[in-house]
């Protein structure tokens, strides 16, 4: 067990308890295989697992490696396997895990670069393969926009939840199909494919079909739902994949037509200023 005689917390800060962080360590330059190392960490109110890792690095073992950035659950960098589930380290307070032992491993279903750092290259490559951007036939308008495409609030709600994906990779870590089939596109890429197919501004469902509905695409999803369970942003990728399947199934049976693509919103030719709205103040710097 690794401890230090240095001051562990700021003077006056109340330590709630001490927990043991058991972390799977691996340095490919020096280690033949991963091994578990234990650290005793004092827990204060509001301390997240990420705070615990920072404490270890600052007070005990500076060689510990992991990815993190925003520390507020919006960047997706600190995804790791914590007490049996893929989670964001910054999004989980230690006391809420309700255990005196915090087992931390790198995300499953990924190769390890070092310690808690997974290799995300395959993950991003799968994402790129579904063409996660608006595809339209009016290329000139895309490159030199003259206006905006009209989209109603109802059309927006059809896909907006799937746009909340922060590419943290937790869903692929939880997916049992990814665990056995490394060519399977995975819930993140498939959910993003649906995000764009469902977007009325997009006209690229045909371009994406070959990749999405290949032998290792959407049809390999068994609807375990583990991806949705671990998603920290409520994207519900399992739902997106079922909508994807339903869409192509209905189109194959000719029970659903291709959606009509959003057109440029008409320009407002005649308008009058509302007299009740005051003018903006004049700039103070000319």
């Amino acid at each position, binding site marked *: 067990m690794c401890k230090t005689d240095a001051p562990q917390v700021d003077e006056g800060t109340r330590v709630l308890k001490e927990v043991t962080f058991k972390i799977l360590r691996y340095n490919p330059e020096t280690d033949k295989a991963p091994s578990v190392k234990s650290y005793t960490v004092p827990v204060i109110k509001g301390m997240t697992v990420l705070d615990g890792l920072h404490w270890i690095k600052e007070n005990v073992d500076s060689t510990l490696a992991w990815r993190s950035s925003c520390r507020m659950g919006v960047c997706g960098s600190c995804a790791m396997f914590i007490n049996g589930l893929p989670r964001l380290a910054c999004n989980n307070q230690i006391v809420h895990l309700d255990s005196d032992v915090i087992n931390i491993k790198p995300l499953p279903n990924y190769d390890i670069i070092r310690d808690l750092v997974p290799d995300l290259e395959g993950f991003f490559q799968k994402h790129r393969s579904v063409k996660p951007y608006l595809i339209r036939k009016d290329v000139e308008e895309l490159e030199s926009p003259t206006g905006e495409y009209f989209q109603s609030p109802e059309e927006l709600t059809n896909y907006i939840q799937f746009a909340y994906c922060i590419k943290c990779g937790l869903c692929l870590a939880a997916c049992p199909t990814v665990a056995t089939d490394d060519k399977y596109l995975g819930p993140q890429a498939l959910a993003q494919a649906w995000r764009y197919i469902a977007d009325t501004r997009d006209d690229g469902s045909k371009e994406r079909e070959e990749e999405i*509905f290949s032998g*290792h695409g959407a*049809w390999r999803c068994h609807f375990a739902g583990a991806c949705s369970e671990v998603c920290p942003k409520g994207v519900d990728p399992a739902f997106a994949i079922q909508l994807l399947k339903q869409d192509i199934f209905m189109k194959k049976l000719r029970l659903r037509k291709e959606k009509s693509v959003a057109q440029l919103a008409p320009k407002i030719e005649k308008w009058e200023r509302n007299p009740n709205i005051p003018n903006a103040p004049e700039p103070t710097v000319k």
Partner: protein
Amino acid sequence: MKESTLWVWHIIAGVVIFVLLGIHMFIMHLDDILVALGIGYHDPISASSVFARSKQAFYMVTYIVLLGAALYHGLYGLRNILFELSLPKAGEKIVNWLFALGGLALFVYGTYVAIAIFTSV
């Protein structure tokens, strides 16, 4: 898009199995109810009952359709399980051809048996 077509047929075959296998199970195991309704045989699994049914066009067609649906549904499902074991591309092609040809051979043989009984004296 071919994979989507295969999947749609997989679903359709599943529905067909649900209906025809349901009828098959009903005939095989709920014969008392069918006899009471005047449309069944006692002891439906006896050789004479099986033969009598097989000589009727309705059952011959039903058996052939059920055979095709069950073979397709089962073999496509098994093929998907094998695909999820991360086979190399060549392996996937071999599995596809093996299952397609094997399934076709079994379907042809089963259809021959059904027609042979139907047309027998």
